[in-house]
């Protein structure tokens, strides 16, 4: 393999990439909705993390103060056992965002790796992995969560993270696999193969970067998906135990009709937090897609 040739190609790529990057940033900045999304996502995340680090008291029940409407002492009011809702929404945000980001990233990593293998090797490997993904896809998440809760006898955060990653990688997998299928026929891949590059190298260093844009976009929107999913599971009673607040289990108080009608602040603030965050993430994802999608350049 001739060394100088590759470096020069690399350098060329680099300079092209940096100018492309600058153009993309400009394009992104022009997309108001996406920019707003980014600002909101960052603002909420920072607020939650600051609250968490500052150690706001989210856990002390003050029963005489229960169900108090918002005031200067309790910005968001208090919940059904007198805990400060503002503190709970902040700390709950940390956990919810953690669930969303961790599961989205992990499921993308798994999905991308398996998708790359399936798409690149094709044939039996591909068929096998497709079947596996279909089996996973066919499983109702609810049942898996229930089985895991019953087996490990614990309603912890770990369960949820595990199940979400375990059942969440298939969409990314399919997408990456399809992209690989179409890209692997292209000339540059053939060239790399002719140079005798290792398969790993071709898959992950040569082809994967070309598929990064859709992966990034789907990871972003998956963050929102997992946060909502956690809320749904909490609603059915299979979410994280209440000692670890999440937006979902704070919002769970909305199950009680009397809370819905008489204590609007108990469900409105966590509900708003989820909605705002998910909305912002979706706009951000849309914007990223518009920017990164080569077909629209």
């Amino acid at each position: 393999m001739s060394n100088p040739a590759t470096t020069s190609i690399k350098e060329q790529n680099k300079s092209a990439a940096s100018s492309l990057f600058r153009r993309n940033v400009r394009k992104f900045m022009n997309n108001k909705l996406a920019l707003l999304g980014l600002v909101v996502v960052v603002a909420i995340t920072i607020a939650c993390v600051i609250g968490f680090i500052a150690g706001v008291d989210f856990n002390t029940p003050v029963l005489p103060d229960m169900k108090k409407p918002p005031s200067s002492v309790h910005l968001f009011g208090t919940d059904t056992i007198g805990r400060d809702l503002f503190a709970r929404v902040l700390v709950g945000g940390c956990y919810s965002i953690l669930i969303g980001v961790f599961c989205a990233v992990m499921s993308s990593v798994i999905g991308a790796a398996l998708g790359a293998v399936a798409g690149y090797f094709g044939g039996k490997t591909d068929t096998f992995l497709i079947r596996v993904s279909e089996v996973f896809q066919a499983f109702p998440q609810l049942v898996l969560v229930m089985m895991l809760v019953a087996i490990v006898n614990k309603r912890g955060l770990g369960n949820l993270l595990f199940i979400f990653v375990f059942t969440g990688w298939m969409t990314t997998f399919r997408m990456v696999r399809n992209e690989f299928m179409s890209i692997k026929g292209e000339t540059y891949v053939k060239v790399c193969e002719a140079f005798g590059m290792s398969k790993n190298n071709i898959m992950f260093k040569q082809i994967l970067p070309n598929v990064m844009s859709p992966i990034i976009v789907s990871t972003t929107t998956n963050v929102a998906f997992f946060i909502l999913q956690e809320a749904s599971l909490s609603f059915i009673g299979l979410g994280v135990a209440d000692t670890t607040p999440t937006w979902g289990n704070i919002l769970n108080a909305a199950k009680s009709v009397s809370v819905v009608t008489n204590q609007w602040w108990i469900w409105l603030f966590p509900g708003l937090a989820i909605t705002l965050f998910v909305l912002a993430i979706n706009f951000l994802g849309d914007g990223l897609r518009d920017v990164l999608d080569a077909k629209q350049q």
Partner: protein
Amino acid sequence: MLKFIIKKLLMMIPMLLLISFIVYFGLQLTGIDPINFMVSPEMLSANKENVEALRESLGLNDPLIIQYFRWLGNCLRGDLGYSFDGSSIASIIKVRLPYTFELAGYSLVLSAIIGIGIGIISAVRQNGVIDYVGRVLAVLGQAVPQFLVGIILIQVFSIKLGWFPSANRVSPDATNAFVDAFQHLFLPVLTLTIGMVAVLMRYARNTMLDVLNSDYIKTARSKGIPEWKVYLKHGFRNAMKPVLVILVFRIPMLVGGSVVIESVFSYPGIGLTMTNAIVSGDYPIVLVTTLIIAAAMLICSFMVDVFNALLDPRVRLGE
């Protein structure tokens, strides 16, 4: 093509078997003793011989693998068995499944019409008023947790306004079956639709944008074909193919989404049955409902494959 379809159909059998196997053993692993559900705690120790006889007669003392194959054999013979509280699962399914299909079916149709409609308009008038408003509204619908939407709809439409019932699917004194169905289905269908529209709208918008930016549309335009004809004949037709795929792919999600919605609306579908069974640990029901949802999922994924094969012959050759 026929060979491809048959092959795909046959593939579903081992996969369903595998899923049933995993769920069966997973449920056994939870270590929950069905006897505890059938016999009141007071009787458990008071009536030891009876309980032991019951256990023996139910075959609970046999090895797991034998129990699994016995259960499988019964299922294949059409005997889905009995829930822990003694109801015939087949009769439960017979009543509930149509209710869920009804709910999911209407939601699918409604969300397809609205979602694809707004999506296409958004794409054609990109960055126009409809684009922004439609996107914001649709994404807002997706951003609010579905159960909260349901709870709010109940509060507003059935409690404050009294327009629609808050629960159930059939009312005892309905004079007109259609009106009755409409009243009971309206709110849950609306809730599910609100959640679905956003996905379809975004997808329809994006594919339509892709198509509109593609070379052949540009060529068509340059040939002087009227704008509406470009959109309808070239744009719409080509954009709909992937949207159809995603639509089919969403069906199981509808079934899954209805699990939450059914419990909000006390809607007696398969989802509510499954949630109640999970909460009360009624595993025979969990097992069968899981398999039904899995089968629905596999059938949809099969349909996606067939669609893809019809649209793109390369997929077929690749197999």
